[in-house]
């Protein structure tokens, strides 16, 4: 199918991430933190988009996968006493992230299995429950710091690591769903019975969506843990899952670019609203309500029509700042 992302794109994105990472210290710490959160949220939202947006399996347990990745990778790097900057830190960190992703995807498989029997609201409640179970189990494990949290994680995440994963997750998901094979995801989402009736193995697609989505959520958790250097179970509660779902819904279910933009926007928004101090969460919530009323299909709908935007921009050199809402 058209609009395949080539390997060249991936290479260029990785090189760009590496180059920017060299100069990351010239970015102010506050802005740098926001940029890192944007990257991590883009990974989380894009991976959830595969499950919710493309495969149509409404999952509310993404924070649980993130927690698994965060704790797994943190245990690995701290028990190996990796310190940032050393030559050994890079392969060990990569390995730790991948292990975190694998542990998360194993649980993704466990969560995916009920999705074969449950639909809609029931699946949402089940995944919500499983996400909470993961959190509660971590909270009761003393060697993970229990409710006190896990301290002393090496600050290994930098711009390169986060945005390299951003590039990889976009590359993987775009090529997965835009292939002829990947249209099976859309078919399962639209009508599972009809999908089966044309020969799509719906079970396999759902399992792939859950394991792949959970894998990247686990890696995002690892990146997060090694950026904030302190994690505790309450960071991975239901609200975190909910924030990620909101990013997907606002960006448009199954819209890759839309979800990336929404993840960035919704990360920046609470920061930009700091000026109005105590009202910011009220305004944030209000904006979400307005978006959902006026654009129920998400800010950007199913697909962003770049051609139309370009035509409009080139016709009017100074576009009015009306936004997309």
């Amino acid at each position: 199918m058209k609009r395949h992302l080539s390997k060249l794109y991936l290479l260029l994105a990785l090189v760009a991430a590496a180059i920017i990472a060299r100069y990351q210290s010239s970015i102010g710490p506050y802005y740098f933190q926001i940029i890192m959160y944007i990257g991590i949220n883009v990974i989380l939202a894009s991976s959830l988009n595969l499950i919710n947006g493309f495969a149509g399996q409404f999952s509310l347990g993404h924070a649980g996968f993130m927690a698994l990745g965060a704790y797994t990778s943190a245990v690995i790097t701290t028990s190996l006493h990796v310190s940032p900057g050393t030559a050994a830190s890079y392969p060990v960190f990569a390995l730790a992230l991948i292990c975190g992703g694998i542990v998360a995807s194993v649980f993704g498989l466990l969560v995916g299995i009920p999705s074969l029997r449950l639909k809609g609201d029931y699946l949402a409640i089940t995944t919500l429950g499983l996400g909470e179970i993961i959190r509660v189990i971590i909270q009761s494990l003393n060697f993970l710091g229990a409710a006190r949290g896990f301290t002393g994680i090496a600050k290994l995440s930098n711009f390169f690591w986060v945005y390299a994963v951003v590039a990889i997750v976009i590359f993987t998901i775009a090529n997965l769903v835009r292939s002829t094979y990947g249209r099976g995801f859309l078919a399962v989402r639209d009508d599972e019975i009809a999908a089966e009736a044309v020969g799509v193995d719906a079970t396999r697609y759902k399992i792939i969506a859950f394991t792949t989505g959970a894998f990247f959520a686990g890696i995002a958790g690892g990146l997060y843990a090694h950026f904030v250097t302190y994690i505790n179970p309450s960071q991975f509660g239901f609200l975190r899952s909910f924030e990620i779902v909101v990013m997907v819904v606002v960006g448009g279910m199954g819209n890759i670019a839309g979800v990336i933009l929404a993840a960035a926007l919704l990360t920046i928004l609470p920061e930009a609203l700091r000026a109005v101090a105590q009202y910011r969460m009220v305004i944030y919530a209000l904006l979400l309500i307005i978006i959902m009323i006026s654009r129920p299909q998400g800010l950007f709908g199913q697909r962003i029509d770049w051609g139309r935007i370009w035509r409009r921009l080139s016709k009017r050199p100074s576009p009015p700042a009306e936004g997309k809402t």
Partner: protein
Amino acid sequence: MMLEIDNLQVSYGAVRAVKGISLTVEQGQIVTLIGANGAGKSSTLRAVSGITKASGGHIRFEGRDITSLPAHGIVALGISQAPEGRMIFANLTARENLAMGAYLRRDAPEIEKDMEYVFAMFPKLKERIDQPGGKLSGGEQQMLAIARALLARPRLLLLDEPSLGIAPILVRTIFEKIVEVNCQLGTTILLVEQNARMALSIAHYAYVLETGQVRLHGPAAGIACDEDIRRAYLGEHC
């Protein structure tokens, strides 16, 4: 014998929809299942395509037992279904819907040929090729569902209520196309239909179902003349 159904039973929880139906479909024929609402016609068809699981009995396709195969495995054997209520992929375009029909095929040039064939058959579809399936009218969706099923190049085509919810004038067109598929492509067709008159006019053989059982079967022409059938299903007084 292309399809053999032996003592098929289908239950939904405690409700027994099909209570031991046996029937056969011969290669190259159009066989129709007629009967009132709730007679078990659709359930029988869905059991053949694997969408609904049989709770008893056997279904054999070209001698092979397919009773416990999953739906996608049955498509791979050469059976495809245009499901009741059409079940179009609403967010995929008409072309993408058709491409999904050929999901298991890897012969791109032949798929392209088949696309041209169904567009020649249903010119309306070609006009709406880039429209999302959900935006098509009821009749167009029905054509799309049949066309999509054809793109799997089935040897046995299952049609579930193709006349349901579409304009009477279109019903005739659709039935003409069904005959065309049968004659030109040699596809065997198992047709479930409430419009008994229409179904009997194109079928070779017919089964009359009543409360989950076969009440009567025989060549379609004979069934159409049967006194009781005329009164019960064709609304005629003799």
